[in-house]
Structures are given as C-alpha cells and as structure tokens.
C-alpha cells in the first residue's frame, strides 16, 4: 500500500514541478514582452544579438537546408517511382521545405547553436555576479540581456528560414537536374507553379515563433543557472532540450492551426 502511495506521490510531485516550471517560463515570457513597452531600449545590444543569432547562424542553417533539399529530392523520387509519380519531386520538395522542414530544421539548428550559447553566456554572468552588477548599475537585466536577444531571434530566424527555403529548393534542383534527369526549366516551372504564397508565409511565421522560443529558453535557463561550472552546464543542456521539444510541439500546434481544415 505504501509503495502505491509513494508511486502516486512521486507522479504528483513531478506533475506539480512541471506545472510550476511552465508557470515560471510563462511569467518570464510575459516579463520579457512587457519590457518592449517600457524605455529604455538597448539598440546596440539588439544589433549585436542580431549579428550573433542571425548572421552567424546563416552557414549552419544554409548547409542544413541545402543537403536536406537534395536528400528530399532523392527520397521523393524513389517513393514517387512506385506510383509513376516522379514528376511531383519539384513541387513536394518546395512545399515540404517551406512548410515544414525549413522552419523546423532551421529552428533546431538555431536552438543547438544559439540557445546553448545564450544560456552559457548568461549563466556564466549569473555565477560571476555580473547580473547582480548590472542591477547595482541601475540596469534591468531583463531589458539589457533578455529583450534584445529574444527580439533579435524572433526577427532573424524567419529570415534564416527564408534563406534556407531558397537554398533547400536549390539543393533539390541540383540533385533533380544533376542526378534524376529533370530538365532545369521543367524543374523550376514545377516548383513555382505549385508553390503558394501561404506555404512560404506559414513557414516564416513558424520561424518567428521558433526564434522566440530559442532565445527565451536560452535566457530563462541562463538567468536561473545553478552555481559553478556544473550549474552552467546543466542550464545549457536544459535550454537546448527545452527549446528543441518546444519547437517540435509548437510546430504541430501551428500546423494544426494553419492547415487543418
């Protein structure tokens, strides 16, 4: 009997801890957004974050999209051949990339690169008392550290996704024309004809949501980092895991919202 009670109590504790964490993250997000309405805005910090998150993530997101586009073309060709539907390769590559793979893979790559770096940087600042120093210097850490990063990621990731879409389609094009014997003009024609504006826009909106999640998780876990190298390491790991899971979960919810009819 006591074993069953203990088991139920541990489930209860886990659920309560999970709900408390969701509550804390929601309050942190609300606090971050509310900083937008209150001056000052640290423009230099924002520009710095834009370069760090956007510009410096371009190679990794671009390479991911390029290779994914190529692999996707090969897979769709092989699968489509079973139904004599090889001609769908250009349109499925374009739709698959812009709606799903571009934003999700781009978001995950940014999560790996940016959430970890933000959490490690802010976590180190926390354990070396730099966050306390900011406060004593009359500077709100949420305004100085969190808001510029979250805003920069929310604006930069859709741009990265857009560039990734182009490069991914190019990857499919290169494989389609070079390996699968598509004519270049036919491939491009099929890509453009079947791609709708909403396919691209929905992916960019997802990118903005994923950018927000990535930077928010990096900042949240950094600000709540434990002491020492172990604390910072744990914060970094938690930021990447939480950002990745939230990206995948919110991707499903957004897909349901945008495309379920």
């Amino acid at each position, binding site marked *: 009997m006591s074993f069953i009670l203990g088991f139920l109590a541990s489930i209860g504790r886990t659920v309560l801890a999970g709900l408390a964490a969701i509550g804390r993250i929601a309050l942190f997000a609300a606090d971050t957004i509310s900083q937008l309405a209150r001056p*000052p805005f*640290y423009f230099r910090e924002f520009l710095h974050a834009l370069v760090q998150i956007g510009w410096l993530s371009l190679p990794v997101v671009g390479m991911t999209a390029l290779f994914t586009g190529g692999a996707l073309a090969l897979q769709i060709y092989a699968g489509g051949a079973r139904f004599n539907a090889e001609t769908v390769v250009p349109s499925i590559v374009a739709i698959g990339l812009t709606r799903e793979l571009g934003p999700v893979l781009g978001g995950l790559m940014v999560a790996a690169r940016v959430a970890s770096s933000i959490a490690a940087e802010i976590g180190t*600042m926390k354990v*070396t*008392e*730099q966050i*306390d*120093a900011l*406060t*004593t*210097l*009359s*500077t709100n850490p949420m305004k100085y550290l969190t808001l510029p990063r979250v805003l920069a990621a929310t604006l930069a990731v859709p741009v990265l996704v857009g560039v990734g879409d182009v490069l991914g389609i190019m990857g499919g094009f290169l494989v389609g024309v070079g390996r699968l014997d598509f004519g270049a003009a036919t491939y491009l024609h099929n890509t453009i004809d079947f791609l709708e504006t909403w396919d691209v826009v929905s992916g960019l909106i997802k990118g903005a949501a994923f950018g927000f999640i990535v930077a928010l998780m990096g900042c949240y876990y950094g600000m709540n980092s434990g002491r020492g190298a172990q604390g910072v390491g744990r914060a970094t790991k938690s930021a990447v895991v939480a950002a990745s899971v939230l990206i995948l979960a919110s991707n499903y919810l957004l897909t349901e919202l945008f495309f379920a009819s």
Partner: protein
Amino acid sequence: MIELHNVHKAFGSNRVLRGVNLTIPSATSLVIIGGSGTGKSVALKCILGLVRPDSGTITLDGQDVTRGDRDAFLARFGMLFQGGALFDSLPVWQNVAFRLLRGSLKRPLPEAREIAIEKLRRVGLKPDVADKFPAELSGGMQKRVGLARAIAAEPEIIFFDEPTTGLDPIMAGVINDLIREIVTEMGATAMTITHDMTSVRAIADNVAMLHDGVIKWTGPVSEMDHSGDPYLDQFIHGRAEGPIEAVR
C-alpha cells in the same frame, strides 16, 4: 545613514539572517566580519535589494529601501564585487563608465571615456588599460577596475565585498589604501565584508561581527582588541578553539 532592523532571511531550511540589527552612520566605514557562510554577503545584498528579506526593515536616511524610485536609490550606490564582476564583452573603459553611458547619468561618449580614464588613473592603472578586455588583465588589475567602476559615478555609499580575497599581500595593501583614501576623499559611507584582519584595521572606522545570523558585537575598530567578546576574540586571533565551531 543605513539602518537594518530585525532583518531575517532564509533559503529553504537554512536560516541565514536571524534578526540582524545594524546602523551605519553616514560618512563612516563599517567592516562586517564573520566566518564563511554566516550571511555577510546576504546582508549586503538585502540592502541593495538583490535579495528580498523575509522580514524586518532596512532604511536609508529614514526611507524604506523597498519603496520609492529604484533607479534613484541605486544611483546612490557603488559596489565592488568579490570577483570584480566585470562585463567580459566590454572593454575596460566601458566597464568603468557603464553607468555614464546609459540611464539617468548618461554623458557624451568622449566625456564618459575621459572620466573612465581618470578613475583608472585614480586606482593606479595606466590609460593603455582602457581599451583592453577584462580577460587580458591580472586578478589585481581586475579588482582595481572594479573599484574604478564602483566610484565612477561618485556614489554616496560604496559596498566592498571581500576586496582583497585572492590577492597577494602587497596588492591587498594597495587595495586597502585605495579604499581608505577613496572613502576619506569622497566622504562616502562604506560597508565592507572581509575575512582579512589586515584589511579590517586598514579600512574600518567601526566593526560588526556577524555569527549565527545575528550581530554578535559591534563597535569602533580601536575597541576590537579589548572587546571581551569570546566570538570576536576567537575570530580576530584565528583560534581553532572557542565558541565558534571550526566545522560549519
């Protein structure tokens, strides 16, 4: 004048402050001593609002520190952190002039830089240090940059958290002299936390001994050696035997 009245603070089951009563008169230098983990830094952070006390009141010139304009309140303070707490991503001069580059004390860039270089000179650092990054400096230099940052906006009240920890005796002496000079010259109110008895004698007008979450003894530094308080005696003479348990 800063006054702490019956301040309590616990972290979970660990009751760090158990009713701290302390008065720091204006333009005097108080040093708080006590063993590691006795709550000295917590008391200091409670005054600055970095940690919220569970109960009790803290007043600055009669005003409750938890009320009123927070920016205006913090503008009256400077703080030297134990590890310097310099911002890695900024060059030294921007660290020193941090407060002068933003907020209500904002100055034009050239003026802020000039003030930063003057404050660096004040703590014995050459102007060529200004454009270096904190990681390029030794521990002693970082401490001095932290000191320059603490005094850059000429605050009325300066807190020093273990200013000589990790420094060699000569550098510790330099920092002690600088603190004493700055406090005397600026007429500032100073509160210092340290374990270093040489620092206590160099910096303090008054001393307070914190143990078991309460102030065990407080008085002028000149009376410290003849207090008759067994806790203070054990601490200042560094004896393993006495009322303070060596293992905490």
